[in-house]
């Protein structure tokens, strides 16, 4: 563990250095324009200082984002509409619901595809085609169509989220269910095992390592889906709404803090699945 601290800190330091450098470079123009408009001249040190603290910088400096993050999480009540935790929770609930739907659907489709040649040939191409459509194009249609039949709020976002997350689950699970080799299937045939027995005793356990890998991809995709689903709803609530509102009003600090909030959330979710994966596989005797 100690061996990792050095490299990790070095990478973080490098990112911060590039970020600060880019902030100075991108924000300096505005400082100079303001000075020119006021008819004054600014020294280099004044430019440097100003680029770190503009209200609407092109690229906010890291500490501005950090302060915004602190103020909108720790210092606001979680019920406040200005709290990032409040918006994060709204996105998270849609993400989790969508992930559950997507995973369930994905697993069902995978089982069908593995057991039925007809489903393999008819469903798989559509699953692949579904992922070639840009989600940004289809998300507003899903929202509008569902809205017109009276479904609004959490569910439409969750469906967009499920739309993105079912695919990695299908692909990974199909691969996992097909992972037992011919000899292992032949062995079960010599016991005269039924297809159900083959599934529960061999295919399903063999597929779990593949499934967990897919779930990690799937939950990140779910989060993206939920955020995208929040964009066409008119920026009411959620991390997506924070992004959209931030861009309406040029609140770059708010955009960046919402982005970082989303990234942290994604990291936590993927980490959580990794934890479940480790515990499950260890209990199954698959981890060494």
């Amino acid at each position, binding site marked *: 563990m100690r061996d990792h601290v050095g490299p990790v800190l070095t990478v973080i330091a490098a990112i911060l250095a590039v970020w600060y450098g880019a902030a100075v470079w991108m924000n300096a123009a505005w400082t100079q324009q303001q000075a020119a408009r006021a008819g004054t001249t600014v020294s280099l040190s004044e430019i440097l200082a100003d680029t770190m603290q503009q209200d609407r910088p092109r690229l906010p400096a890291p500490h501005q984002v950090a302060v915004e993050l602190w103020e909108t999480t720790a210092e606001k009540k979680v019920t406040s509409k200005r709290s990032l935790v409040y918006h994060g929770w709204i996105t998270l609930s849609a993400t989790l619901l969508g992930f559950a739907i997507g995973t369930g659907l994905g697993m069902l489709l995978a089982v069908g595809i593995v057991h039925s040649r007809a489903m393999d040939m008819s469903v798989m191409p559509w699953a692949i085609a579904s992922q070639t459509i840009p989600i940004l194009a289809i998300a507003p249609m899903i929202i509008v169509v569902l809205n017109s039949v009276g479904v609004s709020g959490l569910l439409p976002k969750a469906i967009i989220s499920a739309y993105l997350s079912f695919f990695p689950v299908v692909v990974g699970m199909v691969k996992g269910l097909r992972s037992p080799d011919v*000899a292992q299937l032949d062995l079960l045939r010599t016991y005269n095992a039924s297809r*159900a027995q083959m599934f529960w005793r061999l295919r399903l356990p063999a597929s779990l390592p593949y499934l967990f890998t897919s779930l990690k991809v799937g939950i990140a995709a779910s989060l993206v889906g939920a955020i995208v689903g929040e964009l066409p709803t008119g920026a009411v609530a959620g991390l997506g709404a924070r992004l959209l509102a931030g861009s309406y009003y040029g609140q770059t600090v708010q955009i960046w803090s919402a982005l970082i909030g989303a990234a942290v959330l994604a990291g936590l979710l993927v980490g959580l699945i990794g934890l479940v994966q480790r515990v499950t596989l260890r209990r199954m005797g698959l981890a060494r």
Partner: protein
Amino acid sequence: MLSAEEIDGFRDEGASPVTPPDGPVIDARGLELVFQTNDGPVHALNDVNLQISKGDFVSFIGPSGCGKTTLLRAIAALETPTDGQLMVNGMTPDAARRSRAYGYVFQAAGLYPWRTIAANVKLPLEIMGFDKAEQERRAADVLRLVDLEGFERKYPWQLSGGMQQRASIARALAFDADILLMDEPFGALDEIVRDHLNEQLLKLWERTEKTIAFVTHSIPEAVYLSTRIVVMSPRPGRITDVIDSPLPRERPLDIRDTPEFLAVAHRVREGLRAGHAYD
């Protein structure tokens, strides 16, 4: 996960272990098996005639492509002959499979990595619907038979290759089939482990009085283990020689240095060479 009906259905189909008192346990007459491949038909078995009696230890030896594994798989109803007659315990291979006539040991141990050794051995018992207590008892019995007591709770990766293969033999023995079909079970193991396992297999055969059909590449292994050696050759896969071993049933490892042993080994080698002469 078996429903009561499934268990009953299974028992109805296969509970009566029908072994004809006299006739051969495995009886092949004019057996043909042709695989249709993209390169045209492949004649895997050509006019195979063979009778194996109860308690025999029969080895099938020959170069790759001679059909020895295909013959074993046909006996196990994993391949369907295209012509001729094949009976196992007086039934069709498929009926024999349903009546649990044989245990099959593959070249790879094929233990489930997510199951302990004991749970792996219980796999066929679970599928066949034995009750829990009976599963425990049988698993303990067969693990003792292959000298794996004390490893019940270990996972396969914690065992050496030889021990894994012993566990897979225990799994094949667990439901007490009369016939053991073994497809190069020790092919992937080193010589020292193989010698040891050969010795153990002979003891096991003596104690259990099973009929064993054993596929191998190794002449010493075939001669050491078998009461009968079936020499096969490829293109088309066929039997070229059947040797009744003059060696006694009691076989210490150093029997392999006796003139009788060497004479049988020589005949096998000659048979293999003759089968190869034309290509």
